[in-house]
């Protein structure tokens, strides 16, 4: 298996991080909030709460975008860094790390697209992978699935 990048950071370099485990997969979210946040197409890598060590953490600004999540970005260059689950529960602190911030995407498997029913029709990623609609996501959250977002 190819070695994947465990390090990354923002555009200006003020914020850097190291992951405790090499990521294997990433996914895209096409929801309205992710589209507003990213300036492009949001790509994320799931990282468990204690799975990242930050440098320059004092430059990270967070914005609570819903009752259960916040988003982090560099307050100097504006680079997106993460979506983080803040709702109480066993998964509290789970990160969807902004995949574009990784030093390399090479070797990662693009395995899911969520909120696919919110994707503008003018672009689409090539290839076959699991796709979930908003209704399917909300159903999964209600069911308390262990991989709830």
């Amino acid at each position, binding site marked *: 298996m190819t070695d994947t990048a465990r390090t990354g950071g923002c*555009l200006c370099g003020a914020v850097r991080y190291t992951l405790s485990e090499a990521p294997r997969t990433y996914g895209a979210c096409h929801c309205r909030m992710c589209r507003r946040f990213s300036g492009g197409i949001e790509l994320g890598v799931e990282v468990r709460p204690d799975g990242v060590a930050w440098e320059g953490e004092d430059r990270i600004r967070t914005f609570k975008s819903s009752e259960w999540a916040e988003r982090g970005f560099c307050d*100097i260059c504006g680079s997106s860094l993460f979506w983080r689950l803040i709702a109480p529960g066993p998964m509290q602190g789970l990160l969807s790390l902004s995949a574009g911030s990784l030093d390399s*995407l090479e070797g990662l498997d693009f395995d899911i697209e969520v909120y696919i029913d919110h994707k503008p029709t003018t672009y689409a990623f090539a290839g076959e992978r699991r796709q979930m609609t908003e209704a399917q996501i909300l159903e999964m959250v209600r069911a308390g699935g262990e991989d709830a977002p």
Partner: protein
Amino acid sequence: MSRKTGQCLCGAVRVTVRNMPLRMEACHCATCRRWTGGAPYLGVAVARADVLFTGEDDIGIYRSSGWAERGFCRRCGAHLFFRMAGAALTDNLSLCPGILDDVSGIVLTQEMFIDQKPDVYDLTGERPRITRAEALALLDEHLERKGMERTSDHD
């Protein structure tokens, strides 16, 4: 051409665009991927005179190179635009379509820095896909008209 409105995630910055071009471009360069946190970057080239921002005090500007800068909301981190800066200033800016309330009718017509695109994703469809060298040649032409010279190879 039409009128479009939009806003950042928190609503501190709002935008109204008149004469909205119905074309967007994608950029796969490493700088854009780092900034957006995803890929690719998406932008609509709009005339600056046709763009009205409110809440401008909350717009953070980051100068990402000698000739360009990027705008974001300081409160929520929403990405707003890329534009030429300083002496390289143009009449246009590249507005991130993600902030628009409605992107219907806007078609993806070009991809740039296709040779910097990681192998792990591709967009479907047929459209011009220009390389880094081709994009930088266009940039160099622009800078030369402004009496400037490129001093680094990223944007």
